[in-house]
């Protein structure tokens, strides 16, 4: 039986002075995501879904502050260029899908991961792969002479290894949000090597997302991660370059849970129907994630204008045909204008169809911006 300690959760109504900053728990009635925000930020649009305003509400969280955080490496000043890259290429976008508006609505957010410390003891066995090289050769014959070229080929030798483990592991990161994977897919990975000790000054201007995955439910994931760490350490211990068929009987004891905070910017834009679409920016790398939707309404509008122009040209061509009874050369102009009206009329299809096709392709919803 693995020993686990999941104590330390409590319901908090106000966090004045808790975690060293005057933050309050607040939640979104639409998505249910709880945050810790400064009192002045109660009532802002939810920095998770962008659909409802945050309202003050109690939340369940650990009393002690987070242990580590990854600081923002992308400042607000970087966001303009990031949004320009995000918006660029979306023709016929809605009026709200605009760099200035995205920038104006951008909110710094820290989202959490659990960090678990554990004593690990047990036995393991695996097949270790050791790299080695074999010498081969290519021979060339031409003009009655042979020439040789030496070749080196990399191969892996697999050997059985087993042994015991008695180790302490610190800060194994596991998800603390249900939407962890979805968020990672949107904004990409973080480099935890740049994590620093928690400092209240670094979070006072941001909204802090409260974990919605409790430790009990995230423990299986943490254990898989710990097993992976142990497997990798066993590989290093055996001096192998590869490992396969790893199995272990491990006992995890003395678990200690803390939090790691990851930096994120949240903003949003609304579509034709006023539905907000969230946009996330990785505060460390600048990777942007979110749907880049074109406006179908604008498409119809431009299609209508183009069709109207085509119709007007067609009317003029008819006028030319009528005038040709008096002035025969006007018939030539009439034919030209009729053809032109046809071309413009066909062109009206483009703005009508383009938003539909573009929006269909926006499945991935991720854009990487390098600054």
């Amino acid at each position, binding site marked *: 039986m693995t020993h686990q300690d999941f104590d330390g959760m409590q319901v908090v109504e106000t966090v004045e002075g808790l975690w060293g900053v005057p933050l309050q728990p607040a939640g979104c009635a639409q998505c249910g995501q709880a945050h810790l925000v400064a009192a002045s930020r109660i009532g802002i649009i939810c920095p998770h879904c962008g659909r409802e305003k945050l309202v003050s509400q109690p939340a369940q969280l650990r009393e002690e502050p987070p242990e580590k955080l990854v600081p923002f490496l992308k400042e607000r000043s970087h966001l303009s260029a990031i949004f320009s890259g995000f918006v660029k290429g979306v023709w016929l976008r809605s009026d709200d899908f605009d760099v200035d508006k995205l920038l104006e609505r951008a909110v710094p957010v820290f989202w959490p991961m659990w960090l678990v410390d554990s004593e690990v003891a047990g036995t393991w066995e695996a097949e270790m792969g050791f790299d080695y090289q*074999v010498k*081969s050769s290519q021979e060339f014959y031409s003009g009655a002479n042979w020439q040789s070229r030496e070749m080196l080929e990399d191969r892996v030798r697999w050997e059985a290894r087993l042994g*015991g483990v008695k180790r302490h592991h610190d800060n194994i990161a596991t998800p603390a949000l249900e939407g962890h994977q979805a968020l990672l897919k949107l904004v990409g990975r973080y480099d935890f090597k740049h994590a620093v000790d928690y400092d209240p000054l670094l979070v006072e201007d941001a909204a802090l997302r409260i974990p919605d995955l409790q430790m009990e439910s995230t423990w299986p994931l943490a254990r898989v991660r710990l097993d992976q760490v142990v497997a990798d350490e066993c590989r290093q*211990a*055996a001096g192998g370059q590869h490992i396969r068929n790893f*199995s272990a009987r491990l006992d995890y004891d003395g678990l200690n849970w803390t939090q790691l905070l990851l930096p994120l910017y949240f903003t949003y834009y609304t579509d034709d129907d006023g539905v907000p679409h969230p946009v996330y920016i990785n505060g460390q790398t600048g990777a942007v994630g979110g749907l880049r939707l074109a406006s179908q309404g604008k498409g119809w509008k431009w299609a209508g204008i183009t069709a109207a122009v085509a119709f007007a040209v067609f009317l003029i061509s008819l006028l030319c045909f009528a005038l040709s009874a008096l002035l025969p050369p006007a018939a030539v102009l009439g034919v030209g204008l009729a053809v032109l009206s046809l071309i413009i009329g066909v062109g009206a299809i483009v703005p009508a169809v383009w938003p539909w096709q573009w929006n269909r392709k926006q499945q991935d919803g991720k854009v990487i911006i390098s600054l």
Partner: protein
Amino acid sequence: MMSTHRPNLVDWQAPEDFMQVDSAVDGITVFAARPEEDGTSAPKTYNCPNCGASTRFDVAAGGVVCEHCGFSVSVDSAQVGRRAEEFEFTLETLRRAEHGWGMERRELHCDSCGAELVVAEGALTATCAFCASNKVNIRTAPSDKLRPRFLVPFKMKIDTVHSRVREWLGKGWYHPGELTAKVLVDRFVGIYLPFWTFDARIHSGWRAQVGQTHTYRDRDGNRRTRIEWHWRSGQVTVDVDDYVFSGNSHISSRILGQIQPFNLHELETYSPDYLAGWHALAYDINLPDAWEVAKTEMRERAKDACYQDINNSHVRNFSMNADFADESWRYILLPVYLASYKFEDRVFQVMANGQTGKVAGQKPVAWWKIWLAIAGMLAPGFILGLIGLPLLLLSGVGVIPLVLGFILLVIGIVLAVVLYRKAMESEAA
């Protein structure tokens, strides 16, 4: 798969066939499979457990036998044939192989009588000069892979070899007639010689201009031949299996080649018992050097295969590549009987295949027989020339005997050269 069952680390012990090895991480112990200890690399002395006399491998009995009291024990070995394990050309092996076997003379302690023996260079076996006990020692191999893992044991009894050598001495018309009567080859030394075997797959691609002959009649109606050249290309794969290469530079490779082949289907796993009382030599041609020479031969085989693929006698601008793959090697010991004999103050070497009994070696040549034969070969052409030339000069009718004489003379010269070379080879080492 991870288990949540709590392990009892205090009671946990690694399996017996595993041993602890170095770990690069604190708090993690590592156990690896214990290397197979077959005891073949440790020095071994062969004494009879019954009477204390020295014992040796006996071909007829197929085991280690005491000639004094008749005690016999079978050899613990298995026939693996051509399935015997082969090794890759790893950089590590090649690096170790470059150091050679360890050719320095070394001392061996006789645990039977306590004497200190000096073992000859490259020798794997020794006999104590004081107590006559037989010893096998292959400990100086530069790596475990580079000690002999397989061998073909002696199958031919010494009596059989004697009779085959006498038979061999009597063969051939240009050797001294009294050879069989005068020569006594009785001191045969049974010795295991080192050999490398190599395997490889050679993928070759060739390109050449291949000529096609066309016959036509010109304006005057004469038949003429023209060759039209076309670029052609092809792919050939050659599998070389168990290419045998001698690992000892002191033994005549020419004579060794003549007593081959050895039947490698009878390869056995190495056991020092087979070497008890017999001589055995370690290699002195290193693996990389042997492989280089073998590779040269193999690529020529690939070239021949490409020419066969072309299947045309008109070929020019031929080029090819030979990509070696799946190269592997083995180090084996093969049984050979060595002897020498004196004839008219000259020493000649004889070898016999210890497995098949095939005999080859140096044989003296009765040169007067060779010169007589050569004279006989040249004479018809010469005589016809002598007849034809005056006839031509005197009456102009000697053209036919002159041409015939010239043809016979050329044939005679060719035959004489072949005979002379054969005679020279017979005496060569």
